[in-house]
Structure formats: structure tokens, C-alpha cells
């Protein structure tokens, strides 16, 4: 007599019938809706910036123009020939803020993905396998948490001095293995991602610790499922809501850190416009041309607020127990 196939546990993933309901719940949530609206607007601006420049709506964000300065070489204020004024080199502030959105969103989201990837891998490995691995990974995480993220990021950014690191043996000409430590968007999101993961690990590990004792996981294990199958099919889908909430919250932090590093002069190198570097450049002009600081400042505020609202809203919708 062959055994009857076991019914798939209902709570192993979000059931298909619930998906459309969850989606409508998401959109109905005011926090999610307002956060998404701002993010979508910013994304549209960021994606369409080159098109807007070509159409003549925006100017080249790095083009300096003596027409953008008054007779004393000072930036022009809002409305004086350009919507949001010009900066200390006569560049259009509106164009720079819009192009800055591209950098901030790209670095912010890529950093979030990096941090999430590291956080999920370490969290799952630590929670699922436990024992010595858990001890080692958690101590490593705690060690990382003791280091202030911004200082660590500054230190890592300091290493990017255009040195070439040869990963191949000296005698071989395998230059495809060479790595140049160079400042840029890629190195920046890796740095920010690397310093942003520790907070995630603890939450994910706690979730995994609870999940691995649940019946459907025990049942899968009893049926001979491998660890990788259990993790990919049962654990990961169930921690996904938490990961999404954490990711949304982390994005706000990574965007803020990108702006902070830009402000400190160790972000994306000039003349690429970034919000942080715009604030830094405009700081001495705060009394005479406050728009140089206020405009990128408002852009940072809106973006960070939007991601925080999204995160909060997602938390309310996806994990209502925590809300209660």
C-alpha cells in the first residue's frame, strides 16, 4: 500500500488566493500609498532625466555657465533665469537635484540589496544551523555592530585610493583578476551595503529560529528534504515579509548614508551631482544663497521620509501582529 501524498502545508507560503487581497491591502494603506507615490515620482524623474535634458526641460547638470553667475561670481537665486537657481559654478540646481536622484536611488537601493543579501545569508545560516556556526556568526555580527557604520564607511572609502590589487600570481598576466580600488557608484554601494547588514541579521535569525521549530519544517525534514530545500522552499518565503519591511527601512538609511558620505567628500567623485556634495558645496553660501542647501536637503528629506513611510506601511500590512 502506497502512502497517501501529504497535503502541502497551507502556511508555508502566502496562499495564492490571499495575494490579491494583500495587494489591495497594501495599496489601501495610506502610509504605503503615500510612500510609494513619492518614490514613484522620484523614480520617474530619475529615469527620465536624460530625456528631459534632451528635450530642453533640464540643463546639463555638470555644464558650467558664466551666465549662471552674477557680476560678483555669486550663484543666482530661484527664478532668476532658472527655476531653482544656480550653484557656485553657475550650474542649474534643478538639473543637479534631478540627476542627484539617480545617484541616490541607485546607490541607496543597490546598497539595500547588498545589505539584505548579506543579512539574509548570515541570518538564515546562523538561525538554521545553530551551534558553533551560530556563535561565530553572531559574535561577528555583534563585532560589526559595535563599529559605528558611518565611521566604518569613511574608513572603507579611504581605502579607495585608485590602487590596483593583483589577485593573480605575479608571474601570470591575468589582468582580468585585477581590481582597482576606485571611487564610484559601485564601490560606494558595496561600502554602504557592507556596513548596513548587521541590524538585519538579528531579526532574521530570530525569525528563522522560530520557523525551524514549526510543524511544516519538521515534516519536511522527516520526509527527507535537504537543508537547502527547506531553506529555499519553507524558511525563505516565510521570512520574506519581514525582509521586505526591513529592506524598505534600510533603504532610507542607505540613502541617508550616501548623502552623508557625499557631504564628507568621499562619495561619488565630482562633477557627478549628488545631494550630499551639493549641500557641502552650498554650505558657505547658506546666508547669501540658501537654496543651494535647502533644495537638496528637501530632496533627501522627501526620499528618506518616503522609504520610511513605505516601511512602516508594509509593516502594518504584512505583519499586523507586530502592529498590534
Amino acid at each position, binding site marked *: 500500500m502506497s502512502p497517501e501524498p501529504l497535503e502541502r502545508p497551507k502556511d508555508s507560503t502566502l496562499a495564492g488566493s490571499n495575494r490579491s487581497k494583500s495587494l489591495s491591502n497594501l495599496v489601501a494603506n495610506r502610509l504605503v500609498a503615500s510612500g510609494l507615490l513619492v518614490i514613484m515620482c522620484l523614480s520617474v524623474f530619475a529615469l527620465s532625466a536624460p530625456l528631459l535634458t534632451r528635450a530642453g526641460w533640464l540643463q546639463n547638470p555638470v555644464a558650467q555657465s558664466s551666465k549662471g553667475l552674477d557680476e*560678483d561670481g555669486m550663484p543666482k537665486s530661484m527664478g532668476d533665469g532658472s527655476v531653482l537657481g544656480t550653484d557656485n559654478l553657475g550650474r542649474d540646481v534643478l538639473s543637479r537635484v534631478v540627476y542627484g536622484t539617480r545617484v541616490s536611488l541607485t546607490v541607496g537601493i543597490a546598497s539595500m540589496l547588498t545589505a539584505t543579501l548579506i543579512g539574509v545569508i548570515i541570518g538564515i545560516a546562523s538561525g538554521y544551523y545553530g551551534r558553533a556556526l551560530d556563535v561565530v556568526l553572531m559574535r561577528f555580527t555583534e563585532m560589526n555592530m559595535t563599529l559605528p557604520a558611518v565611521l566604518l564607511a569613511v574608513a572603507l572609502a579611504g581605502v579607495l585610493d585608485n590602487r590596483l590589487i593583483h589577485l593573480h600570481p605575479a608571474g601570470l598576466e591575468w589582468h582580468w583578476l585585477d581590481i582597482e580600488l576606485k571611487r564610484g557608484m559601485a564601490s560606494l554601494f558595496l561600502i554602504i551595503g557592507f556596513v548596513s547588514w548587521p541590524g538585519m541579521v538579528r531579526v532574521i535569525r530570530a525569525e528563522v529560529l522560530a520557523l525551524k521549530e514549526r510543524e511544516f519544517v519538521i515534516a519536511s525534514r522527516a520526509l527527507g528534504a535537504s537543508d537547502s530545500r527547506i531553506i529555499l522552499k519553507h524558511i525563505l518565503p516565510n521570512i520574506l515579509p519581514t525582509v521586505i519591511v526591513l529592506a524598505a527601512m534600510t533603504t532610507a538609511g542607505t540613502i541617508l548614508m550616501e548623502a552623508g558620505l557625499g557631504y564628507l567628500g568621499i562619495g561619488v567623485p565630482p562633477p557627478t551631482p549628488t545631494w550630499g556634495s551639493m549641500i557641502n558645496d552650498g554650505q558657505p553660501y547658506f*546666508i547669501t544663497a540658501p537654496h543651494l542647501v535647502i533644495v537638496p536637503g528637501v530632496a533627501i528629506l522627501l526620499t528618506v521620509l518616503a522609504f520610511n513611510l513605505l516601511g512602516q506601511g508594509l509593516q502594518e500590512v504584512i505583519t499586523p501582529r507586530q502592529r498590534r
Partner: protein
Amino acid sequence: MEVSRPPKRGDLALDRPMGLWVLGWLLPMVALFQGLVVLAVSPGGPDGMLRLAVEADPHSLDPGQVFSNEEAMLTTGSAGIVRRPDPKRPTKSPGNVPIGAGPFVVKNWVRGARIQLERNPYYILRKMPQPDRIDVMVNLDRTTQFMMFERGELDFQHYIQDPDFVRIRRRPQLSSALRVVAGSSPTFVFLNCEMPPFTNRLVRLALNYAIDKEALVRVLANRCVVARGPLQLVVRGFNQGLTAYPHDPAKARALLAQAGLTNGFESTLWTNRDDPRWIKIALFVQQSLKEYGIRLEIREVGYPTLVQLCGKRRNVPMGVFDWVSAADDPKELLDSLLNGDNILDENCVNVAFYSNPRAQQLFRDAVAEANSNRRLEIYRQIESIVVEDVSWIFLVQFNTEVLVQHWVKGFKPRGFWPPARFDSTWLEPAGRPATP
């Protein structure tokens, strides 16, 4: 301040608890570097400050024997804070074996906050210095400094930011406090003559024609003048016959084409990240040369790193650099920055690694020349050669600008380093608000 023993020849004059000695003008220079000096009023009023109560010690160095004139001693830029000499541990390093003493000694030093200097009663120039005390506040950002100056809490300010400078110019009550010496600090982009494509004079010449220096002056808030050559306008021997390379895009393109670089080239432009003006210049040059297909990557590093990297042979192709002379003599700048005889593999000050046998011979001739006028004429010839060889992109000459309150009397701005000296300065307390 207590004097524990009479000073002896070859030793420093005063014994002080911190064990540090101020030589020459270092601390006023540090103060200027930080941009903030408060001259304190003597309790006895301005008359009391004009006199030195203590005469120079008979054991002190006689200025008549050591220096040709007093001014020469005061203009020397070689000064430093050194440890109190230990007679039991002699050293061969002259910097560690100070002789003589400066006009001020340290009275109090709160690290990172304040330095108080007091008149050295044993200073060899009997009538100087006139201020009893100099209070130096350090680590204040420049915006705060300017606000304090406006409130009358500072007597002197150096390093004025562009927006503050424009505000000063637009307000009569502040503009009267501004003292300017035009064209005292050449700022340029050096082109490493040992690194391609700058080994080719045509490329270097093209870059000089490619940049609109008048527009750069405006970007720099009109605080400089277009450079006509390497030397400052204020220095003796400046060649008045030189003219600046005009902005001529067509000629620049033709020269690049002649050099076989019609499509431009790629290079890196190094600059000092700590000075907003240098960053502005780098961005301006980058943007200007982009129109000719020259793609520059800007690398910003701290000033000490920049100097170290630029001084290494065949290391930095081009970079923003400047110079402030300490003496009114063309030799200082020309010999340091442009004499091929001084090229070193490391720590080279001739950052363009420029050499020209004809110029080098003239440098040697100038050293041997005793007649002042003929010597200056030789330096003018050197200037002409340097301008012809274009080892730099001659950009601008920054002005020396300082803010001085109206109650500070006897102050004369200098076009050299340090830009201010307080030896002949005194205060008239009338109108000066009480020190908070």
C-alpha cells in the same frame, strides 16, 4: 612669566612650563592659518603697548652681527615650535637646536581651542613687538569667524569665504575693514613635462589657449587677476612685459591637431580637497577641456598627500597648485618651482619636473650676480623662457585679503607669507566692544 636663569648665547631665553619654544613667527602663522587672531588690549592702554619694559639681554644675539637688517629677520618664514633644548643630548639637526627667540612666547595653549601668546621681553628688536598679547582661537569654521568679526569679537580675520567676501564688498561698513594686496599668490595647473602627452610643448600650449581665464576669475568671485606668468605681480623683478595667453579655442584645437591629438586625450587632474577654491578651479578646468575632447578625472586628496604625490617623479600628470612667497624676491618661487637643477625623484618641489638648459644656466648666473638690477633682469629672462615653455597652465594670481577692525592701528597687509605681522600693530580701544 618667570625667568629662571639668564639666557645664554646659543640657547633660548626663557624657561617655560610647557617646555615648548616659539621661534620666529610660527604661532602667528598658525593663527593666520586658522584664520583667527584676537589682539588683546594692554591694561595700560595703547601707550603702554608701545614700549617694551624689558630691554634685550646682553647675552642675546646682536641683530647687527647676524642680520643685515631687522626686516630680513622678521620676513623669514623658517620658524617652528621646538622642544626645549637638552644640553645633554646635542643634535646635528638645526631645526632641533634653536638659536635666538621670537617676538612672542606661549603663555597658554589649550589644545584645539586657544593659544595665548605673550610679548617676549627678551626679544632682540627693542621696539617690537607692540601688542602685549595675542589670543588665537583655533578650530572655528570660517562662517563663525566672519560672524564674530561682524560682531566685533575678532580684530583680524584671514581666509574669507567667497560669499562672505561678496557681502563685505557690498556693505560699506565692512568693506572699509578689507585690506587687499592684488596678485600675490599664483595658482596654476602644472603639467608634468616628463609624462605624455605633456612632454609635447604643443599640448601644453594648447591647454593654455583652451581655458578662459577671465571666466575663471569671475567664478572665483573676482578675487584674483589673470596670471601673465609664474611670478606674483607684487614681487620684485616681475616681468611687466609678459602677457597672458588669451582664450583662443580655434588655436587650441589647431595645436592639439598638430600634436596628433585631434580627439583629445585622457588624464587625471589632482587637487586639494581641503580648499574649495582649488576644487572650483579643478572643476572649471575639467569642464573647459572637455570641449576639446580632453577627459580629465579629478582626484581630490588632502594637501600633504597632494604635495607628496606631486613631488614623486612621473607620478602625477597634472594638478592644481599654488605658491605664496615668504620673501620679496623672484628667486624663491622660480628657483623652487622651475629650476631643473632642483629636480629630485621624491619630494620634488618642481612639480612640473620642468627643465630647460638655458634657464638652468640663467639660474646659476643669477646666483653669482652681485648687482641687484642685473640679477632681477636675469630672472625676468627666466620668466620669459618659462612662459614660452608653458610647463604650467598659467591661470590666476589670487589677492591677499584680510579683514582688520578699525581699532587695530598700524597694520599693513603683506603680499607675502605670512600675510600679516603684528610687530608694529597696536590697538585703540575706543569703539572696540568688550571681549566676551
